[in-house]
């Protein structure tokens, strides 16, 4: 199988230096200890069940966008990584590990679309996560996402936001918002509030206006809410995607224990998909919580509820026709697609569906930590989602001008696709539109 040119050109110090330090002995021991100690019947069942039929291929946007290159089919990625490790009983080279890390971290979004197309429901994403786990234990992870995992480990947030910078940013956003609504508050550390609002690291760093907008929505909707001034405010989790389960657990524990300390009844999260997966599914379970110890409500559910309860009134619907992207983690992962449509229809005059949609929607190709692997892989990521561009073009042809992407990673990834393929769509969060069309006090 010939390899697309840009893949050979990628230089990533996280992989290069990591692989240079490996010995075959260490690789063998690590692979076998992860396979023996951390994977059980599930991996064995997948490996034993797969009949190599390739039905999963048609599900994967990488495969479809890469002209059906079998390297990029779900089962192809498995063949090039975990099967080889199993077959060789861990006796693989540092060069192999480097490549396996690159495949698992940058050629699979863990989007789980393929699992729906496999007659046995084999979860390729689970196997790619095991590969990432092995590569983490070997210290061979792409540099950018590894740095993010280090940020989580130190600060409990994704962006190296320091202890003082967080409350300072909230206080500054509160002041800004007071110019619009003089009585507006972002109540810090209010014990016993109903809701703790949590966001992802990039919000205070680059998108503080989202915190501003959330504060306006909370205030107008009359929610008794708070934000912590301590660490534990960030719900995001790239450690989950580097296979650093221990840091994932530590970060999730900080998040839930912060909510418990504040005695809130629920955590409302901003528009993020992977963070939801971590808080609602993966991170909590690693810690032993079958369901989150404090109820977790995704932004889509929250907007749905406040619109339905009439806590927010729409003054004038958004007129520009919109199309709606379904983020994998909250649609395949949680089934929020009808709620996001309810919210969209309440706010917008016209929703033009893209196809396929709902749980069959194509991934943005940014999720699963792929965009977090940084600039070295940007081109590959964009080239690997031509099908998304085609899907969006079709929606545009029907009149859609705005693309709603209710997830941070989707938002950024689709922005790249929008730009590269010249789609000319304007990309918005649901919150951007809600803030724009809602009734606000004069």
């Amino acid at each position, binding site marked *: 199988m010939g390899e697309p040119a840009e893949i050979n050109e990628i230089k990533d110090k996280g992989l290069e230096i990591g692989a240079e330090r490996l010995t075959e002995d260490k690789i063998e021991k690590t692979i076998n200890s992860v396979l023996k100690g951390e994977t059980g019947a599930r991996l064995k069942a997948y490996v034993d069940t797969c009949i190599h039929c390739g039905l999963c291929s048609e599900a994967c946007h990488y495969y479809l966008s890469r002209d059906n290159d079998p390297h990029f089919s779900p089962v192809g990625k498995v063949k090039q990584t975990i099967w080889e490790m199993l077959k060789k009983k861990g006796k693989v080279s540092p060069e192999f590990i480097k490549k396996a890390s690159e495949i698992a971290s940058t050629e699979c979004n863990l989007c789980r679309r393929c699992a729906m197309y496999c007659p046995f429901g084999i979860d390729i994403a689970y196997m790619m996560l095991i590969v990432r786990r092995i590569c983490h234990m070997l210290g061979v992870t792409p540099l950018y996402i590894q740095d993010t995992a280090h940020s989580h*480990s130190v*600060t409990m947030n994704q962006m190296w936001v*320091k202890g*003082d910078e967080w409350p300072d940013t909230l206080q500054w956003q509160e002041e800004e918002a007071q110019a619009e609504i003089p009585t507006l508050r972002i109540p*810090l*550390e209010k014990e016993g509030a109903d809701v703790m609002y949590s966001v992802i690291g990039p919000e205070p760093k680059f998108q503080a206006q989202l915190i501003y907008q959330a504060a306006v929505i909370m205030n107008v909707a009359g929610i008794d809410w708070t934000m912590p001034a301590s660490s534990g405010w960030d719900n995001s989790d790239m450690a989950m995607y580097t296979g650093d389960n*221990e840091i994932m657990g530590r970060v999730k524990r900080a998040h839930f224990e912060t909510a*418990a300390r504040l005695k809130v009844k629920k955590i409302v999260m901003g528009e993020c998909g992977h963070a939801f997966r971590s808080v609602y599914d993966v991170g909590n379970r690693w810690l032993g919580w079958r369901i989150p110890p404090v109820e977790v409500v995704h932004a889509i559910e929250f907007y749905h509820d406040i619109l339905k309860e009439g806590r927010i009134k729409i003054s004038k619907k958004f007129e520009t026709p919109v199309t709606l992207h379904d983020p994998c983690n909250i649609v395949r992962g949680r089934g929020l697609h009808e709620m996001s449509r309810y919210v969209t229809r309440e706010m917008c005059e016209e929703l033009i569906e893209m196809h396929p949609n709902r749980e069959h929607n194509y991934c943005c190709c940014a999720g699963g930590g792929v965009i977090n692997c940084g600039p070295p892989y940007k081109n590959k990521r964009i080239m690997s989602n031509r099908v998304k561009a085609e899907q969006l073009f079709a929606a545009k042809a029907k009149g859609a001008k705005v693309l709603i992407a209710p997830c941070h990673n989707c938002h950024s990834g689709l922005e790249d696709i929008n730009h590269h393929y010249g789609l000319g769509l304007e990309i918005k969060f649901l919150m951007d539109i809600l803030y724009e069309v809602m009734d606000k006090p004069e």
Partner: protein
Amino acid sequence: MIDIKEWDWETPEKKIVLSDWTEKFRWVEEPSVSPDGEKIAAIVKLDEGEFNVCVNGQTWENPFEKIWYLRFSPDGRLTAIVSEMGEWTLAVDGIPWEEKFAYIWNTLFSPDGKNIAVAVQNDMQYCMALNGIPWEETYANMTHFALGPDGTKTAASVQVEKTSEGEIHKFQEGTFTAALDGKAWDTRFVNVWNMAISPDGTKLAAEVRLNLYDYTIAVNGEAWKNTFGCVWEPVFNPQNNAVVAPVRVAGKWSLAEDGNIIWDRAFFQLWHQMFSPDGKRLVAIVAPKFGEWTIAVDGKPWRRTFDEFVTDVVFSPDGNRIAALAKEKGKWKITVNGSVWTNTFDMTWKPVFSPDGKNVAAKVDRNGKYTIIMNDRLWRQECDELWDPVFSPDGQKVLVRTIEDGTYCRRIIPTAELTG
């Protein structure tokens, strides 16, 4: 020392009307109440960029540009983080510390309330300040702050080697350590997290990560010789100054003392270990199985488990009884020694034992109204706000602090009235 014997345990009721505050000020933030219940205070907005603290209807002498984190110290002094001319400091009963900083946060109080510490940022360098005096040393970053049991020592995880974003391999060589009263250990770690200062102030123990996957506890800079898959925060054994921490071995959690496993069984999860007041018993919150939570006493879990959450464990003063909060099927409950009260709530606060350990009371929230429950019996009154109950030294009376219909009320109620 806080001498609660000196508090007024006689006057049945004292009231302060709060409703006129909202007329007087542009806004009134959520109130705080002093431990003895004599004072109620709130941050109030006077004008654009002008805030003050209102205590029993009187504002502090001087307003500030911004005020946040209003908290009573356990000894009854009222503190707030305040800013003036773009600089921040702590004001205690309205008097700001002399030292000013670029930013401060995370106020910590010693149990007796005498000592107050904060985290400080100055010129993008970090340190702790105790009673207004900052460390001599400052660091590029600082996390996980601690104040010793007697309140005379402060500690934190500090970055001693500067890294730029993206320098992952330099980071993995170790750029963090712990500092006690500003003095950093010589040893470097990949990470340093929660830490504890020994009761005698001679030792500092912290969770550390040695590389990407080996975890252990370091005491005064020296790592335990055993490493683990993960660790949680250490505590000191009050009897012998040994360090006890949860450790993960082969995917299961147990407890280790000075590096050696001391409990004979392992759990899916184990954390928040604590010693009884006499130091003889050791309990922890555990999950014997995935999704089943309870408390283990000296390694033995209660038979009763809860499917969602166990938190806020507290010993009776004699160490014989243990109370905790538990959440099950979305409802909060109170458990004492593994038996569960029949009343359930939307939220519960940490239980409080009477001095003789016979009675247990807690603040609870039901349908947005607060009340007190004692020994599974609800107080008749429902309030708009309420603070934790406090038993009198002889246990015969309970101080109850509430807000009802815009009026703050300090009540002394006979314990018998609450137990029925």
